[in-house]
């Protein structure tokens, strides 16, 4: 599903070139749940951003769902974001002006899903995440865990093939974090490919595979023992 070959990402300053990623090769198959780990500044988020088409590599090749994805036009990227990739972030990043229901509904609106179908899909998710009573609240009125729950709902409402999570539990206390991780695991079991970046060893183990990144290089890459 994802094929990264010899990916470089660097920043040029006046006198030197600083590499964030250097020669990264990575393959992720459909249905995997990959946890990317590593110390601060190792390039975890950059790698995730490149996978999520939020950033472009300076060198190397990237194939997403079999298509070359390293030189996509802006318009094409929007298409991918609409239908193939869902995101969740450490800081939740919900749209402040919209309430829970509208936040979840928004991606569907941008994809021109019909009103009836939209209502059904959003209602389903609200039901499943136990958020029906909170559907009219605004993000600022929710706890962190609830906000992340909404963010997950928003990310998967369009039924993407790939879910990218950048430290989804970073701003949550452990109980909430666990709840989110269980949810992700369940989604993975239902067939969704997930890649997460995390600092937390325990949470990394919810996944099926761990990739350890140090100074822009993949140091370890192993399956989690069940």
């Amino acid at each position, binding site marked *: 599903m994802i094929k990264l070959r010899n990916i470089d990402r660097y920043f040029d300053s006046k006198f030197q070139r600083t590499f964030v990623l250097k020669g990264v090769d990575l393959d992720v198959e459909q249905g995997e749940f990959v946890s990317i780990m590593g110390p601060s500044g190792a390039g975890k988020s950059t790698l995730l951003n490149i996978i999520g088409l939020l950033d472009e590599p300076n060198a190397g090749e990237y194939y997403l769902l079999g298509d070359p994805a390293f030189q996509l036009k802006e318009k094409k990227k*929007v298409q991918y974001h609409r239908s193939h990739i869902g*995101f969740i972030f450490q800081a939740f990043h919900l749209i402040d002006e919209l309430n829970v229901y509208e936040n979840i509904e928004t991606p569907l609106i941008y994809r021109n899903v019909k009103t009836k179908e939209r209502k059904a899909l959003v209602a389903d998710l609200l039901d499943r995440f136990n958020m029906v009573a909170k559907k009219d609240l605004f993000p600022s009125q929710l706890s962190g865990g609830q906000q992340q729950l909404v963010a997950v709902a928003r990310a998967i409402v369009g039924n993407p093939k790939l879910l990218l999570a950048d430290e989804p539990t970073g701003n949550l206390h452990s109980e909430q974090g666990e709840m989110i991780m269980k949810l992700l695991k369940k989604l993975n079991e239902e067939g969704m490919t997930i890649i997460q970046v995390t600092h937390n060893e325990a949470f990394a183990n919810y996944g099926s595979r761990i990739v350890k990144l140090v100074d822009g290089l993949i140091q370890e890459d192993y399956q989690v023992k069940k």
Partner: protein
Amino acid sequence: MLKLIIISAFRSLLKYKQMSLINLFGLVLGLTSFLFSVYYIVYEYSFDSFFDKSENIYRINYEVSKQGEPIYQGAKSPRGLFHAIREQIPEVEANGCAYFEKCQVLFEDTYYANQDILWVSEDFEDVFPLDMIAGVADYSAPRLGIISETAAKALFHDKDPVGRIMEVNGEMPIEITGVFKDMPSNTHLTAKYFVSYKTWVEMGIMGERGDWSGGWWNYIKMKKGVSKDQSLQKINGFVEMYMPFLADDHREASFSLQPLKDLHFIQGIDGEMGANTNYSSLINLIVVALFTLFIAWINYVNLSTAQAQTRSLQISMRKLVGASNIHVWHQSLAESIILNLFALTISFVIYLIFKNTFADFFNIPLKEAYIPPGNILLILLAIVALGILFSSIYYGIYLARMNYIVGKDKVKGGKFKQGLVMVQMALSIIFLISTMVVYKQISFMKNKDLGIELNGVILCTGPASLNPDPQKREKYQGFKNEILSFAGFESATFNVFVPGMEPIGYTQREFVNPEQGVTSGTVYYENSADDGLINTYKIDLLAGNNFGISRRQNINDVLINQNALKQLGFENPEEAVGRWIFRRGDTTRLEIIGVVNDFHNEGLQKPIYPMVWNNNYPFEFGYFAIRVNTKNLNESLAQLKSVWNRHFTKDELNYSFADQHFNEQYKSESRYSKFYVWLTILSIAIATIGLYGLIVFYLTKRDKEIGLRKVNGASAIQVVGLLNKDFLSWIIISFVIAFPVSWYAMNTWLENFAYKTNLSWWVFAIAGMAVFSIAVLTVSLKSWKAASRNPVEALRYE
């Protein structure tokens, strides 16, 4: 989708309340001032448009030149044209000619002097159909006329005017055939009475067919779809056909057509009627009004883009969940539309409430004007739509260019924003300088030495009831002798026209100096005066003598001014004294007994022209000009009133002060300058609001930096200085832009005046200082608060 967009727009406007309010306030100020300007501009552009098919009506202007030199350019043309067009140009639907005169009207015991009467050809109503409320308009026979509703009430009181006879100038009994509804104030036809000119034909004053010498206003109404050029060609064909006499002294004539709606714009040609709007000032006003609005939109764009930086995360998120750039643009468009429509509604309510206050304040007869329905709102909506499009397209492009990566809100375009602030400031400075120069020119015109002294001169309208009285001169003399016996009165004279009044009608003549050999083509203005002329106006007598006190001493004596001296071909004043001149076409010898200095008989827009004074008592009622000692003015006025009432029992004393009367000519300039002052104040206010908004935004962005500087030992004053430095450098650049632009613009504007003030350096200095101080004050006040805050508050969440 639409619902999402609208909901988001509303909520985000509410969320950033301070910015939204600043934006709204700026927009309301801009739109309101623009709305009032549009109201006035529409009024100016709707002149005479209430007449049916007004777009097909033209006035025929007339130009005579001699060997390529124009000697007459005017609105008046020969009456002969009327019959020629009527009989020979079938594509003209209707045509008419008219002559304007101030007359006295009488019904039973009620008199009115100086009434505006238009003497018109038959079928004049086919060109200018009036709204009749009683009777009909009929000019087909002598001694028929119509009267306006207001004039009818004043003259006939409760009686039905139709069928009754009013006496004009004591010699013409006119039967009223109809009453017309008062015309809207925006018409160039200011007459309250329309009377058949056949009255004069019947009296033998003029022939039935009319001659080809000029003096009348000719109007034509074209048939729909007919080219006016073709008809004009035919009209110009009449020159050869009927005016061969012109060729005798090498004169050439041509006609041109001026559209009806333009007739009230001052063209600077002779004999215009109701022309009182300076066209270039009107254009300036439109430009200034548009710029004021433009400044408001710059604010909007500036503040929105500034805000977009804080909102970049939100916008990125929308893109992440699938919004395209178009979607994001729609979002900004929605906010823009909501805010603008809201501002528009507030402005429109303000406009509806203060419409009449505005008209009174600027002294414009807007309440009585005809404003084509819907025009104002239409113009406004069109302009606002344009503004929304312009601001949201820029904003949209800006959003589209925003970095994709979440959390990184690095956005370019800061330079452009500074550029916009500079444009705003530059415009404000340009407005301020221009307004000051306009005021300087007006005060220059009001204070310039005119060559005569009008201060202390009272102008009384001559007694109308004396017009048919053969003893009127003797009665005037009796009045004059008595009033001058009082200590407060120094001198008095009669006049046909007085300074500040355009000489019209029979006072325009050509004079001939037989010894010069050639006939002059110059138009002279002949006025009447007695021996009081020189002392009343304090004119200098350069050579010769004043009129004698007794009338018999002065028969056929004239005084001339220097300009007339030159036109008549005399070398110097001494040479002219004792010489004879003639009115063109008249054999009466007129002896020049004295020459007076040139003075401004009209406003400084016009150059000085040749004038001749005779000693005949005014052929109608004219004016009495009296010099009074201004020390005990109230007492003197009371004396004047009682003496007047004793001598002229039938006429009320009707007076004005000569200097005020003269300054009436600057009414158009004064009105515009008042407009400019307000628009300047508003535009500076809007620009300041914009500056304030930007500072608020900058301070939020630099919150931490300020905190860090303070932690590291910077004082509040140092921080304020630092922030000022950033903003004020833009303002200094805006000076550099504004100064040459306003210098050039005002230099061009001053070209409109025959006599003008100079562009002093201090105007620029004051304007610069003013805007600079406002900016420093705004920046300092706002940044002081941020700078004096405890830095911990700013750094707490680090």
